[in-house]
């Protein structure tokens, strides 16, 4: 019973996170300006990471932790590059 409750809670939160990703994707698709889209992508990554964490809880496995960690530690590099490109016109000067 508790297991089912927890399962429901996790599934519900996954759907919430999925919707959050949808919102981020909406911003990516909609723009209107490049920085909005980049912000959308950054949010998408972050939310995706949270989704992976809930998946880890759901399955009871720590296997997915490193993937989440990769997003946390390195996911921002892409956004940084995009931001720098917008600001300076090139990524590495």
């Amino acid at each position, binding site marked *: 019973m508790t297991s089912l409750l*927890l399962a429901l809670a996790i599934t519900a939160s996954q759907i*919430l996170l999925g919707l*959050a990703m949808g919102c981020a994707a909406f911003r990516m698709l909609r723009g209107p300006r490049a*920085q909005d889209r980049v912000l959308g992508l950054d949010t998408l990554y972050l939310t995706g*990471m*949270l989704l992976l964490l809930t998946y880890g809880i759901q399955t009871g496995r720590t296997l997915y932790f490193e993937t989440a960690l990769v997003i946390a530690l390195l996911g921002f590099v892409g956004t940084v590059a995009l931001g720098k490109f*917008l600001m300076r016109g090139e990524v590495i000067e």
Partner: protein
Amino acid sequence: MMQAPDLPTWAAIIVGLLVLGGAALTLVGALGLIRLPGFYARVHATTLGATAGMAAILLGSMLCFSIIQTRPVVHEILIALFVTLTTPVTLILLARAAIYRDRSEKASRVSSDGGAEREE
């Protein structure tokens, strides 16, 4: 896919609430991405998921795995740390770029008799 680890009831409730709460907060932040007008307002919205939302889910995860593995599992701290360290970097870089582009766009609007500017 409906499954979940077997946890004691109290833990299950706490974990469930934490995760659900975190997800809800994140969704609110993401909604801000849709609802809030203007880029500078939207930037703030993201922080919800990156702070409290994430924290709640990480706490849930820590609790869950600590119980499953019957030992303290705290490596989620790393995620919190990294996200806290990195999110500002991206936001700072983006916000500054946005300001620059606002300015230059304004400047070119004035100079080029209002010709429609393309996005990039």
